[in-house]
């Protein structure tokens, strides 16, 4: 026990607790680079210089002759750019929430879906899809339903699941530990997943659509989804980042953190609320994209340092870049069709993570 404490303190002494400028620059550069590359590549070949000019042209007050046809310029501004931005936002949110959960629960396996967000959103989305089918198939020829029913149902389902987890895991006894909350999350997830499986079995023709939602996709048309998600990511992101110092203090354990003047329970509640709200919003527009919330914070931890003052901001940046890059793969690898992005994140993310893990000094 004594030895371990000793090694931790030496480690903190060696590692930078502050975010180094070069890592911050690398993160921003990754986001900018991935954005430019993603917007330039797609099934339609468009002159990259024209794309670059088109991006500059989007800046208010700048008017350039991009040389692109109206179709190509619409492809860049209405399909690719909003989709890349959506990927950046969702990736940033999931990685940030994942890093945050890992800190709150002092558990390296924590991911943004730990407290039931995925299961709740899954049940919500499945219910909405099933309802659309039930009402569209039977009474005459129905429409395809409202486009925002699925995101809304997923969002509400996710919030209900997390609220339930918190009520079950943190309510009642004063002596609850973070582990109780994780177990409550497992129970609530199992319950909601059972509900989802039942619905899927009952409305078997919805399986394809539900499945495609579960595998995640960033398909978007125009800027609506981006604008819908942006406020959640900005607000919850600021809240989470503002607590990064508290997370470092909490790493020593609740009692010691309290003796250092921190308020672990309050901090945990604030962070769980912020991370869950942000994740719910992200999931409601993109479906369940796995892996980002686990591997990005860990990769950052292995490369840049284990302080949350380093992990959280860098996870937001590299998470954004990683997901946008994965979506580039989802759009182009199987052209003219698309691959679910969840497949791409796991397929390329897992080996990448293993490489980082094996080559890093800090394991």
């Amino acid at each position, binding site marked *: 026990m004594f030895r371990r404490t000793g090694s931790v303190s030496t480690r903190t002494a060696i590692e930078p607790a502050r975010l180094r400028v070069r890592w911050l620059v690398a993160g921003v550069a990754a986001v900018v680079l991935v954005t430019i590359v993603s917007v330039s590549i*797609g*099934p*339609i070949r468009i002159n990259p210089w024209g794309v670059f000019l088109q991006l500059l042209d989007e800046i208010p007050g700048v008017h350039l002759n991009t040389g692109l046809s*109206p*179709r190509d310029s*619409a*492809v860049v501004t*209405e*399909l*690719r750019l909003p989709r890349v931005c959506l990927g950046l936002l969702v990736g940033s949110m999931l990685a940030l929430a994942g890093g945050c959960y890992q800190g709150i629960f002092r558990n390296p396996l924590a991911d943004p879906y730990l407290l039931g967000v995925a299961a709740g959103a899954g049940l919500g989305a499945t219910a909405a899809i099933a309802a659309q*089918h*039930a009402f*569209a*198939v*039977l009474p*005459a*020829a129905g429409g*395809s339903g409202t*486009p925002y029913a699925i995101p809304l149902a997923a969002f509400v389902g996710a919030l209900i699941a997390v609220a339930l987890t918190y009520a079950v895991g943190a309510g009642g006894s004063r002596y609850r530990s973070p582990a109780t909350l994780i177990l409550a999350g497992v129970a609530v997830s199992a319950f909601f997943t059972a509900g989802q499986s039942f619905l899927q079995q*009952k*409305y*078997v*023709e*919805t399986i*394809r*659509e539900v499945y*495609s939602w579960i595998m995640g*996709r960033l*398909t*978007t*048309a*125009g800027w609506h989804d981006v604008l819908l998600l942006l406020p959640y990511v900005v607000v919850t992101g600021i809240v989470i980042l503002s607590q990064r110092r508290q997370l470092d203090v909490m790493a020593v354990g609740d009692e010691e953190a309290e003796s250092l003047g921190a308020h672990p329970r309050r901090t945990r509640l604030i962070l769980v609320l912020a991370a869950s709200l942000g994740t719910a919003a992200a999931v409601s527009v993109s479906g369940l994209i796995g892996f980002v919330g686990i591997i990005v914070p860990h990769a950052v931890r292995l490369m840049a340092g284990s302080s949350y003052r380093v992990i959280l901001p860098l996870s937001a940046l590299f998470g954004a870049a990683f997901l946008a890059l994965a979506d580039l793969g989802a*759009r182009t690898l199987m*052209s*003219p*069709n*698309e*691959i*679910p992005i969840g497949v791409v994140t796991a397929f390329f993310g897992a080996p990448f993570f293993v490489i980082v893990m094996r080559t890093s000094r800090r394991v």
Partner: protein
Amino acid sequence: MRKPPALALAALALAGLVVSGCASSSTTTTPSQSAAAAAFPVTVGDITLTQKPTHIVSLSPTATDMLFAIGAGAQVVATDKNSDDSDFHGQPKPAKTDLDSYTPSAEAIAATNPDLVVISSDTNKIKDQLTTLKIPVYVASAAVTIDDTYRQETELGQLTGQTAGAAKVVADEKKQITDALAGLPNRSKQLTYYYELDQTLYSVTSKTFIGSLFSMANMINIADPADADGKAGGYPQLTAEAVIKGNPDLIFLADTVCCQQSAATVAKRPGWGSLQAVTGGHVVPLNDSVASQWGTQVPQLLASIVTAAKAVPAS
């Protein structure tokens, strides 16, 4: 309290200006069009085509069949990969693509420069994405009744400038269906049937499109009680016991291609050997894909149902 109405009036006036502006601009363009394209601009539902489409992309095998039947085949430049088995009505097939109607890339569709895209389901936000690129998308969803088939054929006719061809196809189909039904003998007791989608006994009720064809042939579906409230969306899963209890006069297999089912395999199932349909030799194999479409092959499908029904002797 006085300001809002004034504001609302101003907004209304503005909206009026915009609307009248649009209206006048469209009326000014119409006379300039040539006589050959007199039918255009055409509006069907929420899409308007200013001229006859010549680069149609079809991502639905049924729509491909309909387009070729009504005489718009030459205007189709590309189809999805499932359309490859469609009925091209003796005309040359358009370029085959690897486009999958389930997760197509909107950009890949746009790359073919289409002036009309026809889809049957919009699972990947294809319609929204193509609409932002100003590419019109017609959604021909799976039909629920035969009237949906007629409506889609008629609307495709309007959109492609093939109204006469579409009218002829619809008239022919109506006649074939009337002729087929006219051959049905009068029975004191209606025939019962079981329609199999796969060997896990998923079936259809009379509320589905395929079920409606059997209702036209005056047959009773033994799967109807299994989804009386419509919660299974018209596709209930039966138990073997329910089928045996229902003891249908006829069994239709729509799983001959996918799952290699046949009269022989059905007869071998435990407890099925004594069913009336099996002992009487009234297990009817159908082609899975023909049975899952709602296009021009429907009258033929109905005719084969009627033929099977005629073969059952009066009890």
